[in-house]
């Protein structure tokens, strides 16, 4: 079945450093979504990418969808303590109707 792998599992950075999390699917995706979950909170939608090679930016966050629509990345420039949390990618298969979540990347930011 469809699998979505996400790396790294954990990332500790110094405030001001950049951070990237990567998402890879075993099958072609129709779309990829990214969510952020603060400690003790619930996942909150950040963005959705649909087109091959798409790049979207939200302030210090840059999201990319691969040309083959099998991988994606989230890059945060100059991390801040407010960026801490778990970042999840979630993909929906080309012919399926199921949103499969990656395992998430836990980001810790040291000030």
């Amino acid at each position, binding site marked *: 079945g469809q699998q979505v792998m996400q790396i790294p599992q954990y990332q500790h950075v110094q405030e001001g450093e950049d951070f990237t999390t990567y998402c890879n699917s075993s099958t072609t995706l129709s779309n990829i979504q990214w969510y952020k979950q603060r400690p003790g909170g619930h*996942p909150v939608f950040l963005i959705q990418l649909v087109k091959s090679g798409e790049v979207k930016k939200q302030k210090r966050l840059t999201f990319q969808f691969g040309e083959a629509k099998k991988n994606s990345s989230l890059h945060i420039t100059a991390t801040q303590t407010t960026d801490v949390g778990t970042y999840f990618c979630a993909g929906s298969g080309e012919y399926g109707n199921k949103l499969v979540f990656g395992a998430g990347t836990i980001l810790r930011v040291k000030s």
Partner: protein
Amino acid sequence: DTAVSQTPKYLVTQMGNDKSIKCEQNLGHDTMYWYKQDSKKFLKIMFSYNNKELIINETVPNRFSPKSPDKAHLNLHINSLELGDSAVYFCASSATGLLTEAFFGQGTRLTVV
């Protein structure tokens, strides 16, 4: 004025008991889900309903039974609770299925002792 609300937020119960978690959304969405998040933070879909009809039923023990009395509500009933059922359960909803963003409830932390 919470968009997706779950009750209770915390649930501590003994093995073998039966419990229910309720979920309601006021967003007018027609699709609702239940996700289980284990201690390692992995989010796994359990069920999905569209307009009160079950469309996704993952490999979940049949002790778990979802019920959707109307498209704004999706409740989860769990029979004969086991230690391994301890997790955070999230309800979510979306507008037209899985190609739109999912809105999550605040979660129910279930602890089975």
